[in-house]
């Protein structure tokens, strides 16, 4: 088991290095291949009307005139041990982990990320709880009585949940419950300051996001349960004289939910990298919104930073999923 964990962890680190390299390549090699000079590239990192000094500074700081592998190495070194940017008169010390520096906003990327992360985290985890409970419960009940009224209506709602876009349901909910009925607030308050206010503001985004995901989870759970309840080991469990409820929960659900772990890991990983639409719709200042701003402003360092953070979460959740799998399914431990 321990060697399994070590092996998976090392694999995850390697994967992360590959992802950063590819991301880096997209940002720094592709433009070169497209024929951009280092000057032109540097210009993109600065706002409008750059002075030659600014360009020179960016080129020097990012090592744009040096070979790509040196740039990559500096970048990795920055994450591990921090970097120093000297811009004209001033010098900026960017502490580890240094995810870059926005020359447009004159601000480091990392503090921006850490500041916004709790918002995204609150959004993603809260919604996850809702959709897990709702989706799995609906899926299980549907699977136990396929073709019943509940099954058909639940699957109908699920279909609607998947098909309706977030900017529709989200806006509608916002309009109805927040602007019209004024039940829910619209300003994010950190959990540490006022938990009830925190939940109040996040309730609508949670529900909108959960509606979308629980639809998928209900369908996955339903098909998984239908399949599992036909397995031989379910028949064995029944043959022991177990109560049907115990058969479903102890024997059926556990096997049916295993594939969900994979999907859930990926979903959480992706959401932590920024629930772009939800954050935009509900004006939450999370990672996703930051990415949108950076893209709109064509500010490359934050985009690079967000991409890397998102990649990290996905890879990390993948690792968690692998380890979870090994704990759930003893057969995985062998291979």
């Amino acid at each position, binding site marked *: 088991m321990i060697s399994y964990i070590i092996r998976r962890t090392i694999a995850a680190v390697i994967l992360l290095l590959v992802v950063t390299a590819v991301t880096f390549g997209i940002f720094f090699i592709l433009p070169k291949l497209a024929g951009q000079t280092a000057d032109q590239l540097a210009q993109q990192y600065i706002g409008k009307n750059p002075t030659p000094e600014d360009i020179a500074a960016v080129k020097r700081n990012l090592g744009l005139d040096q070979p790509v592998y040196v740039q990559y190495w500096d970048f990795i070194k920055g994450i591990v041990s921090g970097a120093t940017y000297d811009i004209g008169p001033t010098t900026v010390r960017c502490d580890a982990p240094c995810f870059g520096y926005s020359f447009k906003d004159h601000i480091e990327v990392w503090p921006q990320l850490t500041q916004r992360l709790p918002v995204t985290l609150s959004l993603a985890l809260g919604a996850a709880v809702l959709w897990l409970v709702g989706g799995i419960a609906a899926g299980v009940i549907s699977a136990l009585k*396929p073709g019943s009224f509940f099954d058909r209506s639940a699957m109908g709602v699920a279909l609607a949940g998947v098909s309706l876009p977030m900017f529709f349901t989200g806006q509608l909910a916002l309009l109805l419950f927040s602007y019209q009925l004024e039940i829910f607030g619209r300003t994010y308050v950190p959990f540490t300051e006022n938990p009830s206010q925190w939940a109040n503001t996040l309730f609508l985004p949670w529900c909108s996001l959960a509606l979308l995901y629980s639809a998928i989870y209900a369908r996955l759970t339903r098909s998984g349960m*239908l399949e599992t*309840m*036909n*397995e*031989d*080991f*379910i*028949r*064995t*469990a*029944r*043959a*022991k*004289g*177990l*109560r*049907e409820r115990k058969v479903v929960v102890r*024997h059926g659900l*556990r*096997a049916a939910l295993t594939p969900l772990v994979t999907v859930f890991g990926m979903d959480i990983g992706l959401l932590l990298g920024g629930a772009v639409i939800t954050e935009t719709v509900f004006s939450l200042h999370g990672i996703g919104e930051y990415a949108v701003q950076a893209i709109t402003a064509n500010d490359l360092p934050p985009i690079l930073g967000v991409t890397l953070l998102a990649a990290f979460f996905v890879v990390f959740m993948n690792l968690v999923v692998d380890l979870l799998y090994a704990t*759930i*399914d*003893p*057969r995985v431990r*062998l291979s």
Partner: protein
Amino acid sequence: MTDLTKSGAAVGEPARTGAAPETFLEVRDLKVHFPTDDGLVKSVDGLSFQLEKGKTLGIVGESGSGKSVTSLAIMGLHRLGNRGKNVRMSGEIWLDGKELVAASPDEVRRLRGRDMAMIFQDPLSAMHPYYTVGNQIVEAYRVHNDVDKKTARKRAVELLDRVGIPEPDKRVDSYPHEFSGGMRQRAMIAMALVNNPELLIADEPTTALDVTVQAQILDLIRDLQKEFGSAVIIITHDLGVVAEIADDILVMYGGRCVERGPVDKIFYEPSHPYTWGLLGSMPRIDRAQTERLIPVKGQPPSLINVPSGCAFNPRCPYADVPKGGITRTERPELREVGSRHFTACHLSQEDRSRIWTEEIAPKL
């Protein structure tokens, strides 16, 4: 004919309804029908038999003959799960003085695993892959016995030891995939026997196993039966297995019993053309057979559109022997042709013995 009602209500033949039999297990006119989109699947369509404690009944038949559904019906398992939602069942199943068809699902559940237990064909898929073997046996024990985990675990180790698993105190914590096929089937048997059931149903218990392991498992079942004195139903397509282990044999075809009798009768004086067909189809390891096999022509019947009259008539070489096409219009009832030997066939006694002695026996 009796009308079929949904599971729960028992409709037997009026004359016999309600009278508890002397025998340990008695099945009377059992019918199990599954409505499907294509029509009503008559998996079991009027089956009766008795079984005493300490005896073994072999149910022989091909896929779709209703032999597995019969065993599930006795266990009350056919009405659980999605397929069982609409099942229609009638007849009577008497187990030790209790009637099971009319009993509530919860009453049957309480008997299941305690008074009657079952072994399945493929022990790998029949055990939950996420729980240890010991855990699964402990669970089976604690459903019916109010004991703590430690006691139950001791019982599990004891049984694993009894079914011949080496180092049972260690293997009790292994997962099913860590066992070999034969060991898994032993563990399954241990699980089935944990509550000393009086009826043990084994559905193709050795089909998934290698021949040397099969021999071990059959030996084990035989020894355990001697020790526990339980009644055993063994369901198989392999005539070799029943010859080895059964006292009585019941041959099923198209959801009905076509022949039933003591094992010697079935092998040495079989009286139904389908039984002749099975014996003729079977390659024999104990004979230097140079003759061709004598297969049964055609395909097994559809359980939705069972042929009228005798279900076997389209495949029967002697369907035209009885006069007036009766084989196609009238369903033959079981008739006694010898001591405890029954057959459902329109052939007259004379025709039957003539065909058997002149045509069939010399070729077998």
